[in-house]
């Protein structure tokens, strides 16, 4: 079990800036009387396992990791809770784009075509867009071919590289459509990966939510309450906190909510990614 006094958070090192972010949080919590430490994992799978094994008080989880935590907890008679998330984790959408000059006008036109997606384990660039296509009667690998851009497995698509590769595959003609998160469409245009006006948005998924701080219910409640209280008290008006919020990409912390993960639950089952108990089913998943 984790140290009684020090709050221990797990996070995934998907980028070098992660160290800067959590070191900054460590200073912030220490200044407010909460001893804080963090453990970095190279992948979400081990983080979830260690969390449920009682080695962490909380885990900064991707949506996929959240669902695995829910299932693994349930399998052992526990329950997890999403205690907070970023304002920017709420109401995201993904888009399926094609080249502006392409003959593809509707999703139905994707039949027998190639759709570029992100990493195998990316909710936003792979799982949710493929789920959206299923809802539109297009079954992956049956009605169309899926081209994975499987960068940095285990990081659940946090790294932007897979989406950028998918966008490149679309532009160089290796794919007929590409799946990316909404904000990356404008971002890829601005950075030049997608020439301005060269793409058309074919479809947009329903809004979904992204990361959250996950805790196991009933464990270290006071410590977790203190963590949550200090977290929600962070304000963008505070010049010492602001650089951390900017790095982590939020303006305010919000209460956690879980309705935004429903589509992903369905996607996981359709893809047979995890089973009901959170066991990994996909034999091609490397992390």
């Amino acid at each position: 079990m984790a140290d009684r006094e020090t709050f221990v958070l797990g996070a995934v090192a998907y980028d070098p800036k992660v160290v800067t972010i959590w070191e900054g949080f460590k200073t912030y919590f220490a200044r407010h009387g909460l001893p804080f430490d963090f453990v970095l994992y190279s992948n979400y799978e081990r983080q979830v396992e260690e969390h449920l094994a009682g080695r962490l008080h909380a885990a900064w989880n991707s949506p996929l990791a959240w669902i695995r935590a829910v299932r693994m907890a349930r399998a052992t008679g526990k329950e997890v809770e999403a205690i907070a998330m970023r304002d920017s984790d709420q109401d995201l959408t993904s888009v399926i784009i094609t080249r502006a000059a392409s003959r593809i006008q509707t999703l139905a036109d994707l039949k027998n075509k190639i759709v570029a997606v992100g990493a195998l384990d990316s909710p936003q660039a792979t799982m949710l867009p493929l789920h959206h296509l299923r809802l539109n009667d297009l079954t992956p690998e049956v009605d169309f071919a899926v081209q994975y851009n499987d960068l940095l497995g285990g990081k659940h698509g946090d790294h932007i590289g897979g989406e950028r590769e998918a966008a490149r595959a679309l532009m160089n003609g290796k794919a007929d459509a590409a799946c990316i998160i909404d904000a990356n469409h404008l971002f890829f245009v601005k950075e030049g990966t997608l020439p301005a006006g060269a793409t058309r948005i074919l479809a947009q998924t329903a809004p979904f939510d992204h990361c959250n701080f996950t805790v196991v219910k009933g464990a270290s409640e006071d410590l977790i309450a203190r963590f949550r209280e200090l977290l929600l008290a962070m304000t963008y008006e505070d010049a010492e906190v602001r650089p951390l919020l900017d790095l982590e990409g939020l303006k305010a912390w919000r209460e956690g909510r879980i309705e935004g993960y429903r589509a992903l639950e369905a996607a996981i089952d359709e893809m047979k990614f995890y089973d009901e108990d959170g066991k990994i089913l996909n034999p091609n998943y490397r992390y």
Partner: protein
Amino acid sequence: MMKMEKSSTRIIDIKELTFDSGAHLLINRALADTPIGETLGLRGRAAELAVHLRGWCRAQGHEIIWPGSTLDPVVAPTSTQRIKQQSTINRDSTTTTLDESPLVAWIVRGKAGTGRWLGAQRAGLAKANLGDAVVDLPPANWGLAARGATVEAGTPEFHFGLDTKASVWAENLPRLYAQAAAAQWDPATAINWTEAVNLSEEVETAVVQIMTYLIENETAALLVPAKFLAQIHPHFREAMQLLAIQVADEARHIEIFTRRALLRREELGLSTVSGQASLKTLVDEPDFTLASFLLAVLGEGTFLNLLWFLEQYAPDPLTRRVAQLAAQDEARHVAFGMAHLQYQIERDKRTLERLAAAINRRHDALSQTSGLNEEVFDALVILAAGEWTAEAIATGFAKVLRLQEEMDASRQTRLLRLGFAPDEAKALSALHTRNFM
């Protein structure tokens, strides 16, 4: 019901404008007039506007309310159920007339944009002549901000060694800077380089030796202010600018003396141990005020006499002209040094003791060297003599002795103006390096 519930709610129409061609500018402009928590309606026609708006608002910390009655055309019918179904705003306002673009969304202004500027500080005032425009101790986190700018809280700290007004300022700095900027000349056009120079070989050699010596000294005069320039807190903008111009002045001096020396020769003259030892004590001086004193007030001040001497007695018009142009600039360098020291002495009389100690220290450090090199002294005599007769040499020698007396007299005048007593001024002037600079 055709009116909005909140009459203050504005709607803007950005027509075909897209986020990849500046849509955020019009939206930000309208949001600036929208109170925090209030909504702004957005109409537009660009195909990707709704998608880009969603990402942009998320990054800016604004909420979005999608018009409940309108289906987003890019969303497939099967996935239109929203996590957030808000339609508190009257739906009638979403109707579109012929010349209006369709309503895309309502933006609820977040507080992050204004929150960023809480605790921001105004970094003095731009115009130096206004009361407290230039503060005594500018904070390290004002950094490179323009004086007079509003600095966001949490800006990184810069560590400038010269970060107090007393350590760099002078009363007439803005005027000195303006004069310096106005007095810049172009070496290519300010001097007629095609003018014929036909000196005897020996006199030409003397001129080349003096130029060689001048270049070496100008190099010290360039490096010393350049070293301090990078340490000045940019809040003291005029001091930084004036030193920058001074460095550029010295660069031109090096150029014109080099060009004059190479006019008829391929090689330059001699550089001596004693000359460089003297200059090394200047380059090594770590204190800006002491360096200003040794370089500007004593060194460049003494150099002024030398340049005027060359302007008067040099054997060819080109050499006279280059000396004249350099002297104009040097006079300003001396003026800044004097003004800065006067500013500091007025605030702390003990500065005079530090200055006196600095002359003594330098004198002790140089006591084992031979002072002005013989080659330079002799070259000055030959140059002033102009010919090789006994009478001419005697006259030249007398002129150089008089030059040294003039140098001493003007040094004493400056020391008196700084506040030294006459006997102190006399004694300190006598301790000045025999290398002139």
